[in-house]
């Protein structure tokens, strides 16, 4: 059981969603985050004040999956998020200690497997 975190470009988020659905990964949450990953800084000017925008808008996917779904999830994130330019994002895979489905109290692999799947 792993927690896969993918940080991607906002404009690629829809493609990532599609790729995840195709890979039958159907449980995840997303959030809007700001971050920096080595891409070119944007320079913006507001009435004479010129600033370097150090942070880029990103979308962060959090996907808790059983072991057999780790690679498909990573593949889907890469497929959906890759443009080939600096700033496409990162994927982090973390060990997951416990998972509980609140509605039923299902634990761990049960909890991260969509209903009617196991």
């Amino acid at each position, binding site marked *: 059981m792993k927690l896969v975190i993918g940080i991607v470009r906002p404009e690629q988020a829809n493609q990532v969603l599609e790729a995840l659905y195709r890979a039958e990964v159907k449980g995840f949450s997303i959030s809007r985050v700001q971050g920096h990953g080595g891409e070119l800084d944007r320079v913006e000017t507001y009435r004479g004040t010129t600033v370097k925008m150090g942070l880029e808008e990103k979308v962060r996917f959090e996907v808790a999956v059983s072991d057999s779904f780790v690679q498909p999830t990573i593949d889907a994130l890469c497929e959906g998020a890759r443009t080939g330019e*600096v700033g496409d994002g990162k994927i982090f895979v973390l060990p997951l200690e416990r998972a509980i489905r609140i509605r039923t109290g299902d634990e761990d692999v049960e909890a991260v497997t969509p209903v009617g799947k196991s």
Partner: protein
Amino acid sequence: MSAVTAAVAGVDTGDTAWMLVATALVLMMTPALGLFYAGLVRSKNTLNTFMMCVAAIAVATVTWAAVGYSLAFDGTGDIVGGLNHAFLDGVDFAPREGTTIPEMVFFAFQATFCIITVALVSGAVVERMRFGPFLVFAALWSILVYAVLAHWAFGGGWLQEGGTLDFAGGIPVEMGSGFSALAAALVVGARKDYGRQALLPHNAVYVLLGAGLLWFGWFGFNGGSGFSTGDPSVLAFTNTLLTPACTLVVWFALDLIRGRKVTAIGAATAIVVGCVAITPAGGFISPGWAMLLGALAALPSYAVIVWRTRTHVDETLDVLAAHGTAGLFGILFIGFFAEVAWNGVSDGLLYGNAAQLWDQVLAAIAAPVYAFVATFVLLKVINAVMPLRASAKEEAQGMDVVQHGEEAYVTGEGAILVSPEDGGQIPVAVADSR
């Protein structure tokens, strides 16, 4: 009264006072349109969309003062006017022929019409057209399309001379912008995500507020198009209240039937559709018929919106449906329901004058065809010199950052002040740390 403050002979101070206010009201419609349009696009394109309207104020005012006004309102040539008023030559305090207001006021009032019409067309190309080519397009379009159509309808051109009635701009403003928008959408092409992703309005409150301010301004637009405080202006003013209200009611009903819910963005659209429909007809039809016009005008515009979103034509903000279609409907409506008892000018078919309907049909064919063809050719020519579109990557990033170097909703987090000593030096890319 001293000679300095005395009005020039033939100028009516009451009429002039109203027209000064009406001009300001119509100018406000363009930022209102900017707000309306900005709410309808995605947040990353907010500023660019609004800026196209601001650009229309800048560019169209200059071209209008230079040659546009003269081509529209100098002389009675069939197709275009002359150049005797170019660079405001002879535009002074003397009353404009046929009116009781100084020609300067008449010029300014008409300028605001040219401005908003240019801004309207931008709705077809937002979220992907580059700003530079838009400026060029706005300048040329205001002369080649708007001024020509304005001459046909208002300046003594062939339609007006032939008897076509257009009170406040169904021909140049509404059909002119609507059918040009269709051409522009076809030449510029669809947004890269069009039809593949849901491209949703990012702020419905902007849309409603923009529509409300447009309606407010429209009282100057229609109410000022009689160039006086006389009966036609009063009639058009009140009809500007009645018609959009009826459009709203019918739009609510259509929304209820189709989706079981009355939508806010639908309501904002209905306000615009109603205002557009009464624009050509304002001073020519009775309040009762104006209410019917509002109710009926909802139907074709609603249908065009439903149809358009099922096609590959990314006429992004539905200028054709809201302006082209409703404008055309209003122009034709005059042909049936105009009433001498109310307008003192002409009857429509219903009152025994079938010829009026033919005059209206002629305008409903000629103006769309000219607007579409001229805009299509103009954009093709500009595209040959400078690409109209941003790249797919720029489109993904959003036009605000790419075209203006600003964002509408900037948080300021992570922003580093570039000190003047750096000379605004563009930082280089940091090597990717992978």
